């Protein structure tokens, strides 16, 4: 939810639905961004002092000097395991320590040996150990090039935009003038004092900036690259745009009221990771800095037409395409991880090796979530729950927003409306369903509120610049903000989720962290003052990390309350690099507009590329009221996105799925049912994502990295390793969609009709209101459970149907993952993980994890082979050597073979022969 107070009221009364841009800074209004952006390329004052170079086995250090002011920097260079190069730049002798981001890397990265290949007075050449990869450090001006063979993969400071504002003592204007005139010989040591260096005012807020200027920036050149992605969160296209003619992309976690589409404004979360892709190679840049950050992108081919590019090619134009990127952060140090790929999946695993993988969610959380601000009371919850049964629509979670609390005091229940929460939770548990209740990080300042008193007495609140507890205005009125950057604070917070602390809770209650940017209604840009302090650090240094820490402490609380047994489920709005380890993210307060439905795809794809797979948008749109058509289309699209939750603003009319007439109820029911049949597949993909860091929902180019036609596609995507291609209908009144089916030698099967289509074509698909265009790739095997029940938990022991889609070589493969669905026991190898292969007319199930143990009641009830030919007989051979003939059905018109009730246990070894 966004702040609705003065700002919201003013907007709504004027009838405007767009964001009020005036509430948020442009680069021009952000002093450090303006300062840094004003620097001109090609004038780098930095020089590498090669004589200071020290090389141990795994670490190279080198001093850089700014010839203008003689301030020295220390550069560190590491070769990290898995084809990653880390470059750190800090002041050699800062006045006081500069902030280095903790708790984001999962461990100190493992280093690998570096060696010097050659060295002269102009530079040093280092070997990176693999595939003739080298780093060339040039001395004057300082520049760093990463090469592979004769190709430059990436260059740093090639445009000379490295800037490192050193910490300095504050001088008042008068003494500065005296010094500069008297000691004219040392004038290069003095920096020009500009506006906004020691104090900055935006609207009515003044930032006191006691440490003065402290920004850092660096440019990267990417030869051969025309496509860059990532750096979420922005409501923008998947492929990032050049920023020459506007503001840079901004990364600064903000509660933006009614955000606007297709612009680079900051939103609720930030992951400072960019992925660069060309047909030859995929690389990534991870800029580990939690302060306000701006990213400029320019390209030498931007603006050129396809024809122009062709002309260049024909004429042998010398200019290779190149993308230049520049990162600017307000404080901290430069700490970058250059992920050298070369494939998209290599970049994913490289990034995962640094910040971890997607948390493995409880299976139920992949089901459908019913949310609204607010379900009014227990009776309301009960009747909505009953509505799902009455209309035979499955769901797993019902959600409670802020109104369930006693006066916006989190960890409490409204004594009248939610007088007996355990009774309510038990009612849900009886139906194998669950609940999520909101817990926000702003704490009501109220002497009668236990949580507030404890935090205050322990000194756990963030402090204002004068040392008192920071206070801001949020839902409860006056509120303070716990300092989640403190480990002791987080431990205390986690302990508050214990069943005896958080009264009225049971194991089927999970948590939602909203407003954790943090949102401060009366703060600058609706967030916390940058000069507020977290111990030794300013809020300025840690801002983008705050939300991650809130979710971290909350998830830890849910783990602890179960004695470390149960997997947590925590939804967050604010996030940072590493948030993928902690739970789910949603795209915040969107609106009931077709454009918002459409942009949910690139927004979640962008997050997936930088590790955050568990992403979704509010089904139906948060603000405003959707048309019935939009609502149905959103349910259909959402069914094929990872996090599937309907949500609505308190001022909108009710929109539970059955309120729009029987026809639309049926359409929504069908969409939700499709989701539930695919839960085994979603779950298995999340297991994969948890193990490998690969995104669950991914752009086509990830799987077809050489197919240029896929590079900018954002109206369709893949779920999992190529296997399902989804092109949801996101246009009003659509009569058809055109889906690009990739792969020259691929075939694709419509999952609803089983019709076969060739790859490498744009396929026009006529659609009706019931259509959700989804295709299964020939060559894949997807498990489903077709007995859709009230909730995912009710389907636990149900049998599987395997969908085997044959490719032109008449082969297919897939996986099947099964565990208990909710505990950490999979870490103790309690799971089933099998490889399913179809080749040479034999379908087999082979154990991929022989050391793992788990038993399941589930069996294989049906096998559907798409693109099959008619066998004369089908024989099943089980592990005990027994053979039996199976009945089957063959539909010659569609070439679909259905094997009836083979009956083997899903965890067993077996082979099935089609003769």
């Amino acid at each position, binding site marked *: 939810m966004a702040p609705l107070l003065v700002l919201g*009221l003013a907007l*709504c009364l004027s009838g405007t639905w767009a964001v009020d841009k005036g509430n948020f800074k442009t680069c021009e209004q952000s002093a450090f961004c303006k300062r840094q952006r004003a620097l001109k390329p090609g004038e780098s004052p930095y020089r590498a002092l090669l004589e200071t170079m020290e090389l141990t086995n795994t670490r190279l250090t080198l001093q850089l000097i700014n010839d203008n002011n003689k301030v020295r920097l220390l550069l560190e260079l590491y070769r990290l395991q898995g084809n990653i190069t880390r470059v750190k730049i800090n002041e050699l002798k800062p006045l006081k320590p500069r902030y280095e981001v903790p708790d984001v890397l999962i461990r100190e990265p493992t280093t690998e040996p570096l060696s010097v290949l050659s060295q002269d007075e102009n530079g040093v050449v280092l070997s990176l150990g693999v595939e003739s990869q080298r780093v060339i450090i040039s001395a004057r001006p300082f520049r760093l090039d990463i090469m592979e063979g004769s190709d430059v993969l990436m260059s740093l400071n090639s445009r000379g935009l490295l800037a490192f504002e050193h910490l300095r003592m504050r001088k008042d204007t008068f003494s500065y003038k005296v010094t500069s005139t008297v000691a004219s010989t040392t004038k290069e040591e003095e920096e020009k004092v500009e506006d906004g260096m020691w104090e900055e005012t935006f609207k009515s807020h003044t930032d006191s900036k006691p440490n003065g200027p402290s920004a850092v920036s660096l440019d990267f050149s990417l030869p051969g690259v025309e496509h860059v992605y990532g750096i979420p969160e922005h409501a923008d296209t998947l492929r990032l745009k050049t920023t020459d003619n506007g503001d840079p992309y901004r990364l600064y976690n903000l509660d933006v009221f009614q955000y606007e589409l297709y612009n680079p404004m900051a939103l609720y979360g930030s992951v400072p990771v960019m992925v660069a892709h060309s047909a030859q190679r995929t690389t990534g840049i991870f800029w580990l800095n939690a302060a306000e950050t701006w990213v400029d992108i320019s390209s030498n081919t931007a603006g050129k037409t396809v024809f122009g590019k062709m002309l260049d090619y024909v004429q042998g134009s010398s200019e290779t395409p190149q993308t230049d990127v520049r990162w600017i952060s307000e404080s901290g140090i430069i700490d970058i991880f250059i992920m050298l790929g070369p494939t998209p999946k290599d970049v994913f695993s490289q990034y995962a090796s640094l910040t971890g993988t997607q948390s493995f969610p409880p299976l139920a959380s992949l089901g459908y979530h019913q949310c609204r601000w607010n379900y*009014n009371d227990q009776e*309301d919850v009960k009747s909505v729950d009953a509505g799902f049964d009455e209309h*035979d629509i499955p769901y797993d979670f019902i959600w409670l927003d802020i109104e369930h609390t006693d006066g916006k005091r989190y960890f409490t229940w409204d004594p*009248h*409306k939610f007088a007996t929460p355990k009774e309510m939770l038990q009612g849900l548990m*009886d*139906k*194998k369903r669950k609940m999520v209740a909101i817990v926000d990080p702003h704490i009501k300042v109220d002497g009668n509120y236990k949580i507030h008193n404890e935090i205050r007495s322990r000194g756990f609140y963030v402090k204002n610049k004068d040392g008192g507890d920071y206070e801001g205005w949020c839902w409860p009125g006056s509120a303070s903000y716990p300092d989640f950057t403190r480990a002791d604070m987080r431990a205390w917070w986690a302990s508050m989720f214990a069943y005896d602390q958080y009264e009225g809770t049971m194991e089927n209650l999970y948590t939602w962290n909203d407003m954790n940017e943090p949102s401060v209604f009366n703060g600058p840009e609706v967030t916390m003052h940058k000069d507020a302090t977290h111990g030794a650090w300013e809020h300025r240094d840690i801002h983008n990390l705050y939300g991650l820490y809130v979710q971290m402490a909350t998830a830890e609380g849910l783990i602890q309350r179960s004695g470390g047994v149960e997997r947590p489920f925590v939804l967050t709005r604010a996030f940072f690099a590493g948030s993928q380890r902690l739970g789910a993210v949603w795209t915040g307060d969107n609106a009931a507009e077709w454009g918002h439905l459409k942009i949910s795809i690139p927004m979640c794809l962008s997050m997936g590329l930088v590790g955050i797979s568990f992403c979704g948008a509010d089904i139906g749109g948060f603000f405003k009221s959707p048309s019935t058509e939009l609502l149905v289309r959103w349910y259909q699209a959402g069914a094929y996105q990872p996090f599937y939750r309907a949500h609505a603003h*308190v*001022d*909108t*009319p*009710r929109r539970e799925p059955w309120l729009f007439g029987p026809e639309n109820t049926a359409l929504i029911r069908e969409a939700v049912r499709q989701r539930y049949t695919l839960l085994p597949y979603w779950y298995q993909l999340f297991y994969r994502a948890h193990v490998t860091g690969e995104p669950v929902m991914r752009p086509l180019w990830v799987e077809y990295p050489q197919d240029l036609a896929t590079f900018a596609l954002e109206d369709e995507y893949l779920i999992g390793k190529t296997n399902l291609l989804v092109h949801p209908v996101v246009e009003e009144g659509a009569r058809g969609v055109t889906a690009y089916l990739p792969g020259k030698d691929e075939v694709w099967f419509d999952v609803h009709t089983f019709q076969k289509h060739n790859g490498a074509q744009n396929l026009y698909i006529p659609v009706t209101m019931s259509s959700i265009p989804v295709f299964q790739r020939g060559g894949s095997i997807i498990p489903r459970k*077709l*007995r*859709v*029940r*009230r909730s995912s*938990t*009710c*389907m*636990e*022991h*149900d*049998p599987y149907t395997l969908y085997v889609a044959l490719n032109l070589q008449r082969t297919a493969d897939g996986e099947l993952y099964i565990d208990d669905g909710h505990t950490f026991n999979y870490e103790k190898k309690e799971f089933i993980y099998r490889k399913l292969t179809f080749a040479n007319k034999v379908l087999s199930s082979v154990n991929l994890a022989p050391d793992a143990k788990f038993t*399941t*009641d*589930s*069996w294989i*009830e*049906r096998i559907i082979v798409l693109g099959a030919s008619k066998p004369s007989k089908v024989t099943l051979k089980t592990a005990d050597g027994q053979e039996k003939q199976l009945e089957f059905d063959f539909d010659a018109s569609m070439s679909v073979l259905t094997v*009836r*009730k083979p*009956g083997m*246990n899903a965890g067993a070894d077996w082979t099935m022969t089609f003769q």
Partner: protein
Amino acid sequence: MAAQVALRRQQAQEESEARDLRLLYPCTGIGGEAGIPQGSSISAGVPVSVSSSPAAACFDVFGSENQKDDKRFYRERKSFLCIDGSRMIPFEQVNDDYCDCEDGSDEPGTSACPRGRFYCTNLGFRPHYIPSSRVNDGICDCCDASDEYNSHARCQNTCWNLGQRERAYVEGQMRTLDEGLRLKQQLIEEGVLLWREKQAQLRELQQVAEDLQVKLEEHRRKKHEADRLKEQTLKALEAGDGGLIRHQNSSVASIFHLLDSNKDGSLTVDEIKAKVVLVHDEQRVLSEDEALALLDRGHRMDLSKFQSTLWDVLTRGDTVKIKDTQGAPGSLSSEDPHLKAADRAAEWEATNLKKVEEAYETVNMEISDLQKKLAIDYGTDWEFLFLNGQCYKLKVYEYTYTLCPFNQVTQKSTAGVEVSLGMWGMWTGKPKNHYSQMVYENGEPCWQGGSRSTTVTLTCGTETALRSVKEPSKCQYIMDFQTPVACQPVLKQQGIHSEL
């Protein structure tokens, strides 16, 4: 009375149906031999093996309703035709936990078919269908536990208790309905009386209005007469000079005395300023200069000088006059006793007329109010008429809601702020039961646009009271309003039938 007869008829039917059911289920429940998914043939995690299942000794098929219509489909034989006729399958494949028929008819007892239905026999309670997806899902749905024959759920047969409770509930409902209908009859009778009373009242008021109109005309005439008399007297006064002169001396003296505030026998500037004003601008105090001019440029003026100078000016009356002060004569002629009498008479008649006019207006307003009230649809027998003029309150959390039927709905917070949730709109029940729902519209405007409205559903009860208030969406209120007049004898029969 009719209701009780209907109830007894219903009960008799129930009992006979129950007897039928027992006959139809010679091998009851899942412990018996009925149906296929039994005992060893289904164990956890193992699909039903058809070959090992005992031959269906009973003529019913588990999970199907064994009624006349269904029986023919599941007769023991070699093959089974899906009920939709789409397919013929071997009989062993009925209820073998694999869906063969598109319509789900081959799996009435398992969860295999997506569109299937499972029949809960629920002996002792009412039988009903559940979706097949609720079979063996670990949740007890049928009170006889028959849906969870192969799951981890431990279900107990609760049909008898439920049946007891249901019967008690239905009996309670029946009592309520009977009592409600009795009360309703009373209210209908009262309603008719009230309607007649109101009609009589209306006629009475209309009669009063007519009488008042006659009176009104009489008084108008009288007033007119009095006014005319007054006018005549005034004219006569002004015309008859002799008479006026007779009074003139005393008048000159009395006016002089009136002006001579300090009674010293001479007029001063201040005294003139205090009592004399311009004819055309009575509010303005005369200036020093103007007053001096009236005193013929002398600072003092005695009676004789007054009589020869200022008196003339005053009697001419076209430039200045004596200010209307309390008790002071407004004009020269007001001193005349005849005129005074005529004036009093005219005033008296005016007052009388006003009173009658007011009475007439009041009565007409009452008539229009009553007509408006009587124009509302109070049901076929005016049974809802008694609600008009009543208000019903209910406190929900921090708010007190007040429903004044056919008038308005309000919400009052504990802080004391009262908000309108709508004014009487109309009946909005379905055609079949038009008087089951009413709507109040155009209440206080909402923050997001639109205005508050309230939908009131009327339900049968022995008391008339507001039972619940909800606000499912912002500014849209739903009320449950209970009253005997909502009891419906027709519904009564339907109700029992569908519930049992």
